[in-house]
């Protein structure tokens, strides 16, 4: 080996000395010796350094990611709840001065607001708005507090979130909770005995309305001195008593009362706000608003944050000093928890646990890689160490050589790894910022947050892995004896099993098969000498390769599991996949609810409305469609019904029995579509003539009903396809009568008695002699085509037969009164690249301009899908980054094992070839050895992955009934390919190296 350096010995030695001086201050012959051997084996050294760098990088990335996510969650907390840590109520401003004195420099930010009192609502209003409306003013941050070192990005206490309008800016203005919009506040008795409503309004509340409020102070009935927060829940005690006759008497005791009610004042509504859970039912006024109660008192709410306290206990001590032992205060515990001041809570623990598990996996992988590299490096140099020992090197000196080697590798690998980890995490976060923001919520931006502690931890763990890896080889290096060095035998320690086999063989011929033509054993019989030699080598070195095979198996399992997780994730998308072609779903609701089809302008004017929708700029041409979902009663020829399907439905559907009796009478869903949609459907189904004409009554039978329940997934086809017509029942029924399934499974007339206590079955539908209208079935299909706006999966969620009909043919015909409306929906898609918000606003305006439709809710389906995909993308990026690096570590490991293992056997290979082993046989032998390794790694890995998969399946199948157990074969194939390529490359590299040395050299290859 020394000959590699002959050429430029001088300069190399200089470099060696320089590096040696850097690594070990008293650079000596052993350090230089180490440097040389590292350089002599450049590839293995590089692979080991890369392994250390990858492992450290992965650790760094995991730690940085956890820190970043933690920071994002804290930001979420800060944005929703503010940065305050403690809050207390005060009536005397001196308390604030005390706080300043007591907290001193620890006080960071302080905000105050006033609780101006509560207004009692009338019983009528209280039904949906609660007993009270509290009045708070907006929080103001105290200017006297220096916003020192602490949290300054978010408000101390957040201002309420506006739903409409603006926040009050001057006295007399008020922002009401959004739930009061459209309500009329009326006078009358309140839920409190002897207290009348203090809130009235002229008509329905909207922006600009005037509201008159008289606020008082809520106090406990038992202790009138103690105020209750004006936004707090109504303090009521419920009691239940069982009477003598077994009836239950419910008792209700109001525990509070309202005092100090001031004069009524009039306010202008300038905004509507979304109420927060922490504030309760509260309206907000400006900070300049004068006091409202009779005594003109107000309770102050103070919120403050601190810096420099180490734990929640210290904060508590401050509060006790400020408010006394009996004082009460509130703690922003979720923020404290994430700030680490409140330890031992679940979420922080699970984050730490998550990081811990990942770090453990990485450390184990890293230790296996590095120790493998060291082990090989040491066994390659057994003779060198023996020689050094024979020349008088002490054991300690030999051990040190190994530690120095580890030190050099760490010195180069760990900094690279830290840089890699930070860079990788930065890129991953940059790529997935959008997805993370959606996951964390509230528009909080998520970016890479670096903490010096993480880098220190990554470096320490990397160094620890290195040290642990170097330990065993160091001991081994120091125990190499001079005798071993002089003896030329290679380090072959046959397994006990092999020794037992040899012990059982007596005569010389026991080594051979019965005919004496080949060695004994299955391998030789199947694959000849190459297989025999490969098998024997593996048997002897089983222990050595087992660790590497296991490492390979683990990375294969990781790769397959990654596929699994991403499969499950993308599988989830299909559950929110509406299946239809539309991007927007518009729900039309009318304040006057009627199930009469003719009463609903949204249904009757469907063709006009779809035309108007399609005129809105940004709506894709031909994408607007309208569907009125109605239900009615039908009779179908029993011969046209697939009764097996109905039985299957009855057996498994969670919705009870199929809505049809054995004579073919039942309830059906009718999807009435606008003309354009019917034309498109007809074109997709290949209909023509009368069938394609929307003015002509005909129907398409949707032949699919879901039988999915908690445990099983499935669909059935209720039609045989033979039915040519259906009869729609034209029943003119009284208000207390309807057609429905009776308990005995017969469809017929049901009637409710006058005092609505009993329902009786009057007669089966078949015996009612009802008039019917026959509608031809023009198609029977389970796929309504690309252009139909509702997906088949959604359509299949039915309890009876489903038909699609042109609305134009129904309106004005006898059918109109036979069908009852349940839902009216419109659908449309975007033009590619359209401003989606502008389009939905345009549609809202179009509906509004009509004047006959009350409210329209537009769901942007594309948006939901996009959000979901962004989240999946985010998770996948992190998942695959982790897998890729773990895989890289495994690859480095495999490479080191295979390549070094083969290179160590150079002499053995040369001997075999000089004994007459041909190249082809030789290659076959190597191939078989690698194949064995590959099979062990792959089979083990796939088995492990299957186990994990089964775990996933078991965990998820309880919640998702459509789940089937499937292996991600694409990823299994990928794992196979990766393993094959890595093994081929490793073996190829090693053989190239061994061939580069000619046989003669190899035969006398001294390990020195």
């Amino acid at each position, binding site marked *: 080996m020394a000959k590699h350096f002959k050429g430029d010995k001088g300069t190399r030695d200089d470099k060696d000395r320089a590096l040696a001086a850097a690594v070990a201050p008293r650079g000596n012959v052993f350090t230089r010796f180490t440097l040389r051997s590292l350089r002599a084996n450049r590839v293995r050294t590089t692979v080991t350094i890369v392994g250390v760098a990858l492992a450290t990088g992965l650790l760094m990335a995991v730690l940085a990611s956890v820190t970043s996510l933690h920071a994002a969650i804290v930001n979420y907390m800060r944005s929703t709840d503010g940065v305050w840590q403690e809050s207390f109520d005060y009536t005397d401003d001196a308390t604030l001065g005390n706080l300043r004195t007591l907290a001193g420099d620890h006080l960071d930010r302080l905000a105050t607001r006033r609780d101006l009192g509560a207004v009692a609502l009338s019983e009528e209003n209280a039904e949906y708005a609660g007993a009270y409306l509290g009045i708070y003013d907006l929080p103001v941050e105290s200017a006297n507090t220096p916003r020192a070192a602490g949290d300054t990005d978010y408000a101390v206490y957040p201002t309420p979130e506006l739903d409409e309008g603006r926040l009050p800016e001057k006295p007399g203005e008020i922002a009401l909770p959004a739930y009061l919009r459209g309500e009329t506040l009326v006078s009358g008795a309140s839920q409190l005995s002897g207290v009348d409503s203090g809130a009235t309004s002229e008509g329905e509340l909207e922006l600009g309305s005037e509201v008159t409020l008289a606020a008082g102070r809520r106090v406990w009935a038992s202790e009138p001195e103690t105020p209750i927060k004006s936004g707090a829940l109504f303090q009521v005690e419920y009691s239940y008593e069982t009477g003598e006759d077994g009836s239950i008497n419910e008792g209700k005791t109001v525990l509070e009362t309202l005092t100090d009610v001031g004069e009524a004042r009039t306010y202008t509504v300038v905004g509507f706000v979304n109420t927060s859970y922490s504030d309760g039912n509260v309206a907000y006024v400006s900070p300049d608003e004068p006091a409202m109660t009779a005594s003109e008192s107000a309770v102050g709410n103070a919120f403050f944050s601190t810096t420099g306290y180490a734990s929640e206990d210290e904060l508590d001590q401050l509060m006790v000093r400020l408010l006394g032992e009996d004082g009460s205060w509130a703690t922003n515990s979720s923020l404290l928890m994430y700030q680490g001041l409140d330890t031992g809570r679940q979420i922080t623990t699970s984050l730490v646990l998550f990081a811990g598990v990942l770090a453990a996996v990485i450390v184990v992988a890293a230790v296996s890689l590095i120790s493998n590299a060291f082990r090989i490096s040491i066994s390659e140099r057994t003779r060198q160490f023996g020689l050094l020992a024979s020349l008088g090197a002490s054991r300690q000196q030999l051990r040190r050589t190994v530690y120095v080697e580890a030190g050099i590798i760490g010195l180069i690998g760990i900094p690279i790894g830290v840089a890699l980890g930070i860079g990788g995490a930065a890129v991953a976060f940059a790529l997935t910022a959008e997805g993370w923001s959606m996951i964390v919520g509230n528009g909080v931006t998520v970016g890479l947050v670096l903490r010096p502690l993480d880098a220190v931890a990554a470096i320490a763990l990397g160094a620890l892995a290195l040290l642990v890896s170097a330990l065993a080889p160091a001991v081994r290096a120091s125990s190499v004896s001079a005798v071993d060095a002089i003896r030329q035998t290679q380090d072959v320690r046959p397994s006990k099993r092999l020794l037992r086999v040899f012990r059982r063989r007596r005569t010389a011929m026991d080594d051979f098969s019965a005919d004496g*033509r080949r060695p004994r054993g299955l391998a030789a019989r199947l694959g000849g*000498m190459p297989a025999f030699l490969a098998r024997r080598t593996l*048997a*002897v070195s089983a222990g050595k390769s087992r660790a590497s095979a296991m490492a390979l198996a683990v990375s294969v399992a990781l790769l397959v599991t990654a596929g699994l997780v991403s499969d499950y994730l993308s599988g989830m998308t299909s559950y929110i996949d509406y299946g239809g072609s539309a991007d927007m779903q518009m729900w039309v609701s009318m304040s006057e609810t009627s199930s009469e089809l003719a009463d609903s302008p949204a249904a009757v004017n469907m063709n006009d409305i779809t035309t108007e929708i399609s005129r809105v700029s940004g709506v894709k041409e031909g994408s607007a469609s309208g569907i009125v979902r109605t239900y009615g009663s039908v009779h179908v020829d029993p011969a046209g019904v697939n009764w097996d399907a109905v039985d299957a439905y009855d057996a498994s559907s969670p919705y009870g029995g199929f809505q049809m009796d054995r004579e073919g009478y039942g309830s059906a869903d009718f999807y009435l579509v606008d003309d354009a949609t019917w034309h498109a459907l007809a074109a997709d189904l290949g209909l023509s003539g009368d069938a394609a004409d929307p003015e002509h009554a005909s129907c398409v039978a949707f032949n699919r009903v879901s039988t999915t329940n908690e445990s099983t997934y499935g669909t059935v086809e209720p039609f045989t396809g033979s039915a040519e017509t259906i009869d729609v029942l034209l029943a003119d029924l009284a208000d207390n009568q309807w057609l429905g399934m009776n308990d005995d499974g017969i469809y017929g007339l049901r009637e409710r008695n006058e005092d609505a206590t009993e329902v009786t079955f009057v007669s089966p539908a078949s015996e009612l002699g009802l008039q019917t209208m026959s509608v031809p079935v023009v198609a029977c299909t389970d796929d309504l085509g690309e252009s139909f706006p509702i997906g088949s999966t959604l359509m299949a969620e039915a309890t009876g037969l489903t038909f699609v009909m042109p609305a134009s043919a129904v309106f004005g015909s006898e059918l109109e009164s036979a069908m009852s409306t349940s839902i009216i929906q419109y659908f449309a898609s975007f033009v590619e690249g359209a401003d989606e918000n502008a389009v939905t606003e345009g549609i809202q305006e179009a509906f509004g301009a009509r004047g006959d439709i009350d409210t329209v809710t537009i769901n942007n389906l594309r948006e939901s899908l996009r959000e979901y995909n962004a989240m999946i993308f985010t998770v996948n990026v992190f998942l695959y980054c982790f897998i890729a690096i773990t895989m890289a570590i495994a690859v480095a490991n495999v490479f080191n094992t295979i390549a070094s293992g083969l290179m160590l056997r150079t002499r053995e290979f040369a001997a*075999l070839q*000089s004994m*007459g*082993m041909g190249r082809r046989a030789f290659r076959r032998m190597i191939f078989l050895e690698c194949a064995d390794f590959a099979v062990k790694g792959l089979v083990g890995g796939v088995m492990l992955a299957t186990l994990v998969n089964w775990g996933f399946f078991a965990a998820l199948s309880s919640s998702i009934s459509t789940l089937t157990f499937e292996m991600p074969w694409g990823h299994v194939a990928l794992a196979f390919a990766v393993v094959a390529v890595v093994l081929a490359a490793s073996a190829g590299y090693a053989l190239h190296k061994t061939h580069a040395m000619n046989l003669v050299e190899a*035969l006398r290859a001294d390990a020195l």
Partner: protein
Amino acid sequence: MDILRVDHLTKTYGTGDTAVRALDDVSFSVAGGEFVAIIGSSGSGKSTLLHMIGGVDRPTSGTVYLNGEDVFERSDEQLAVFRRREVGLVYQFYNLVPVLDVVENMCLPVLMDGRKVNERRLTALLSRLGLTGREHHLPNQLSGGQQQRVAIGRALMNAPAVVLADEPTGNLDSKNSAEIMALLRKSNRELRQTLIVITHDEDIALSADRVIALEDGRIASDTRAR
């Protein structure tokens, strides 16, 4: 009758300035059954010559004829077959396959050839080599002398026409050396095998039929005994 003819054999390692001419136009013939000792200082080309004869390495120019056939006209695969059938090689460092036991090591060339192991021959060899009772030991369970005897057994198992030994006793004490040489000599006499031995040992050289001395890749002297 010449069994082996070395014809203008030249071997150069490396190229350009660093080229080393290990063998420089070496020619000689060896008769069947002859015992030839090759001597020379380190780096004189002895081992290179032996490996050329054994078909382990190819020459830069010139050729070797064994039994009248050109050794290097063969392809690599054919050369491998040649090595396992026609020659027996013994090395200073034994070069046994560490994962095979004594018998398997000895029979390796036979097995690679897919031929039947001759039981009588094997038992006879084992007893003559003093390896009876050690049939199923692995090389690292044997002493140096025993390992070399296994290597000799491997070279003789195929009854090759030519046995080539590269300092077979260089790593052994004098008692073991004498035993090893006696074994080789005996086989040479009894089976009329041609034996070519590289040696530094004067006694061995003196016992040979012929001594070829190499110096800087050339034949410095070629002396026949008696």
